[in-house]
């Protein structure tokens, strides 16, 4: 029973981090209509940059500020240079993001190397729960994820930029006619998408390993969250990420992790076929 609760708790925390990454994927999809295959690698680049920040400054906390900022700039540049010229042809953007994914992975292999590394949690304290000493950092990670998610929704609904983003997504032509600078909104959206994934990377770096392959593993999971939550349905995406990781955590307590992954993939196919608008259509308004 204790193991079950523990895995469920792990799943919940991991789900909150995934929600952060999947949210970036979802806004890029919803606004730019791009299936971003490089998104997992944005996360991976976040973990690697967190590692470099720690190496260079000796201070992990700096990464929480610096890495999302670099991520934002990188994302904006990528949108401007790579995505903008082919924005209207979805098939080409898939190829371009696939190329981007290769470039990011190889760049990390060249600079960071291929050996997986670990970062010690910046909060070393533990506390007893369900019969073991649980890392306090994980709770902190969950807190950061919740604050970032809440902050993003506030940004989306309470600021001018956020309103522009929603307007362009809702009806691009009308938004442009009303004077919304759609071009800049696209750059902004891609930047924020990258920044969210990079922040997820920083938060997750002390929990998972830091290596060039993590993005490939995490990408299917993020897509599952986006699909099950409903394409472009942001609260649904966040909820689905938490739900999925929680379920996988529970299944892992009595079966192989691969079985857990297969069951969520099967769940995702069912959702795609039966309710392509996502599980939460109609609930979120």
């Amino acid at each position, binding site marked *: 029973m204790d193991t079950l609760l523990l895995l469920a708790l792990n799943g919940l925390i991991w789900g909150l981090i995934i929600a952060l990454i999947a949210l970036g994927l979802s806004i890029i999809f919803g606004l730019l209509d791009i299936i971003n295959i490089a998104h997992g690698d944005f996360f991976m680049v976040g973990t690697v940059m967190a590692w470099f920040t720690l190496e260079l400054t000796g201070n992990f906390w700096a990464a929480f500020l610096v890495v999302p900022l670099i991520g934002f700039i990188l994302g904006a540049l990528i949108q401007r240079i790579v995505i903008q010229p082919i924005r209207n042809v979805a098939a080409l953007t*898939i190829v*371009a993001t696939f190329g981007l994914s290769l470039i990011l992975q190889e760049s990390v292999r060249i600079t960071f190397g291929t050996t997986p590394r670990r970062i010690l949690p910046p909060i070393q304290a533990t506390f007893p729960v369900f019969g073991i000493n649980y890392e306090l950092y994980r709770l902190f990670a969950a807190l950061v994820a919740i604050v970032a998610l809440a902050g993003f929704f506030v940004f989306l609904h309470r600021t001018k930029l956020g309103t522009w983003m929603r307007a362009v997504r809702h009806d691009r032509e009308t938004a442009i006619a009303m004077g919304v600078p759609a071009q800049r909104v696209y750059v902004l959206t891609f930047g924020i998408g990258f920044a969210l994934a990079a922040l997820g990377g920083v938060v997750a770096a002390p929990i998972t390993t830091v290596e060039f392959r993590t993005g490939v593993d995490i990408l299917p999971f993020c897509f599952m969250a986006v699909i099950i939550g409903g394409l472009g349905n942001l609260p649904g995406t966040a909820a689905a990420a938490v739900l999925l990781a929680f379920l996988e955590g529970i299944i892992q307590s009595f079966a192989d992790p691969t079985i857990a992954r297969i069951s969520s993939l099967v769940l995702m196919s069912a959702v*795609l076929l039966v309710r392509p608008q996502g599980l939460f259509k109609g609930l979120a308004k």
Partner: protein
Amino acid sequence: MITPHIISRAMLIAFVAFLIAAPWLIPAILNGFWVSVIAEIMIWSLFAASVNLLFGYVGLLSFGQALYFGFGMYGVAIGIATLGLSFWPAFGLGVFAAVAIALLSGIFAVRLTWHYFAIITVVFSLIFYFLAVSVKPLTGGDDGINFTLPPVFSIGDVTGSFSDANFQYFFILATVSLCFFLMHRVIQSPLGKALVAIRDNDVRAALIGLNVYQLRLIAFVMAGFLAGVSGALFAFFGRYASASYMFYHVSGEAVVWAIVGGVGTLFGPIVGTTLFIVIRELVSTHWEHHALIVGVMAILVVILAPKGLVGLWNEGLVRWCARAEATSARTDLQTEP
């Protein structure tokens, strides 16, 4: 009068002549290693062609063709290593397995289109990838299955087997050519025209009485067949099958090859595949980060030549011929090629 059609025909003949002469020509000017690279390129071109058939002619972007490639591969490997089959039954098993799973997954997948289709094909391939990794006794997981290849045929004293490099080359050339020829015939047939009609406008296609769902399913199974044959050939070629070939990165590479080469053209996938595999072979011995070049090339081609390299070539050819015609100052009425 030189028309684009004549130039294309001449290039096709030169290309076929080159492929037939390659086992003797290439060792004379480079070395024998490149003959097997050409064989590998042919196999992967067929795989890229399966993406092209779906995306270029039906408008469905599949990101999961590696699943059918993997089934073709495993059908052969399990047939030979576990069931002890000889060459042709194992070949048949591989292709049959690929077609069967394509039919099964196609029944569900082609109900969706566009983004949803792309995603569900990845999901299906991932499900079977994870299954293949976890069912180690049957599939060998990531380590894969190694096997020794039985001879293709033996009549009296004459034995044909893949241990003879030239036999292997021509077997692959013949099989791949046959598949491309079949694909060409299908595209030229009324069925192919119906598929293109669906690609261009599925609502209109339905309105003129085409059964869109059924036609998409047929195309999906045919693409599964092409991918299955290429997977089976690759298993023969490497005497090996592994779950890693079912991962979505393999599907993704085929999509890149097809789109960079030019979708909706018969030769696009061949051009794209050749380009990337030649780069890989040239660079990977000197520099381990050749994937960086692949990524940069993929991005450059989609930005600079959105119709792919073959599309670019065709446009250039038509323009060049038009100019040549204009300068020859003929006033005859010319029909469009």
